[in-house]
């Protein structure tokens, strides 16, 4: 089993991914490869369907000459890194003050009912997961959510339905 995992991991760590990580490394002083750790984790997370395995973090550590624990520290500190599987579409809903006072609770309720999941859960078909997030800096468009790299603002339950329909 261990060998299979290792093999699968090295397949994920393709030359293309290495080249992408190298672009991050090039931004920093030669002796500070570690500065590329956040960029690298994002790249491997995306290539792995949106979450990080220990094997992937270990690979990043080896590639950046970091102790694995230093990579785990970073991966557990920042909220955008996921340590368990997420949906193909990770729905992040802001519930902070400006969104809350513009009825983000109705958006959350609608999503939970429609998808049959709560925060931190994934739909059975793996299509969606739900996450509560802190202010995403788009309070002028409250209530809002982020799916993947995209912001969606001025939400209503109807708009949410239309957005979800368009996602694979």
């Amino acid at each position, binding site marked *: 089993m261990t060998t299979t995992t290792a093999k699968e991991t090295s397949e994920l760590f393709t030359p293309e991914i290495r080249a992408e990580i190298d672009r991050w490394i090039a*931004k*920093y*002083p030669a002796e*500070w490869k*570690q*500065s*590329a*750790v*956040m*960029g690298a*984790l*994002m790249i491997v997370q995306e290539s792995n369907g949106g979450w990080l395995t220990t094997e992937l973090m270990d690979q990043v550590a080896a590639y*950046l000459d*970091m102790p694995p624990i*230093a990579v785990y*520290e*970073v991966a557990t*500190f*920042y*909220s*955008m*890194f996921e340590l368990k599987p997420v949906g193909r579409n990770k729905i*992040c809903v802001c*519930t*902070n*003050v*400006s969104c*809350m*006072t*513009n009825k983000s609770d109705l958006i959350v309720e609608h999503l939970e009912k429609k998808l049959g999941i709560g925060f931190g859960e994934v739909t059975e078909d793996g299509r969606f997961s739900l996450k509560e*997030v*802190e*202010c*995403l*800096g*788009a*309070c*002028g*468009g*409250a209530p809002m959510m*982020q799916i993947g*790299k*995209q*912001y969606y603002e001025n939400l209503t339950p109807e708009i949410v339905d239309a957005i979800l329909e368009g996602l694979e």
Partner: protein
Amino acid sequence: MANEVCLRTLDLERPWLIEQYQSRGGYEVLKKILSEKTAPEAIIEEVKKSGLRGRGGAGFPTGLKWSFISRNAPGQKYVVCNSDEGEPGTFKDRDILRYNPHQLIEGMVIAGYAIGATCGYNYIRGEFWEPYERFEQALEEAREAGFLGEDILGSGFDFQLHTHLGAGAYICGEETALLESIEGKKGQPRYKPPFPAHFGLYGCPTIINNTESLASIPMIMEQGGEWFADIGVKNSGGPKLFSISGNINNPGVFEIPMGTPFSELLAMAGGMKDGRKIKAVIPGGSSAPVIPGEQMMELNMDYDSIAGAGSMLGSGAVIVLDDTNCMVKILERMSYFYHEESCGQCTPCREGTGWLYRIVHRIETGQGRQEDLDLLDDVADKIAGKTICALGDAAAMPVQGMLRHFRHEFQYHIDHKRCMVGVG
């Protein structure tokens, strides 16, 4: 008198393109500085004269910050831009990155020239993908046009500029946590001193400024520090971007002179939604103590006016709340935020923010005890000023503000086990 500095290209089509920026005179002042070999000290002097104060929230004078760097000390120095916009209610830097990225780039190059740095980083929060792509595209354009890189415009001055992407951590908006984050670590603030001007990124002298501060530099250099200072009022030079949100008709970002009456800003934002009554305003991001609506209607949007009312202008993030809001619920949400975002380094903040949230939560859910009000005050007092960075204060201040102005709502929750506001 609106949109004169950071949003001055907003009326153009695709204002983020370099040719659009240049059609408004963009990069001209950089060319002038480099060809005339303006003395770096003269630039810092001009920024001091402008009265520009840090737009991220702390309000520290930008020119003074720059003057702390020993320009002639050997070795690398860095210019770092803080685009980790995350203070709840704030959404102005996102617009600078999306609509006027070149002005930020020009400001950073000038800053580099002024302090003798040849390298800079713009730290953009990880969720800001669209702004990141815009900024990256602008970097490409600026490199191609010779405004970035080696020997800029044949002047002999080099400046490299890169983007660093965050990954979701409010604390990285704190300047030393941001530096730790660029160094590939957890974003935990450093003990100060030493300050970044002496020991910053990679241990080198570093200036860190907010996006809006750095994007203001080109206009200060083009029009002069005095011109900028005169737009505002005493102690609050220039115009400022205000992000206004909440229960209003037309939320958005407005660049208006410092000292503009709040009532005018509210009118620009379309006034209260559904004609409701204004109850309270959080005038400078969620860390700023709340101000009752009636009092706010008499105040002006500048540092001294808001400070005089016991709050702070902060990042210029104005959250307007109408009379359907339960202030206990608002504070409960804010306290949850600080508890969630505490980096865990200092005990008073790590433990205290949890205490604050749990106490407000039990009051909100009808489990409050009479002694809880004093306990809240006590816990807030035990956090404030007792931590390495200002997150502890940021968590304590809203609690103290709410209890000062809306204690009766908390009392009602405790006495009646329910909310006095109809919708609670």
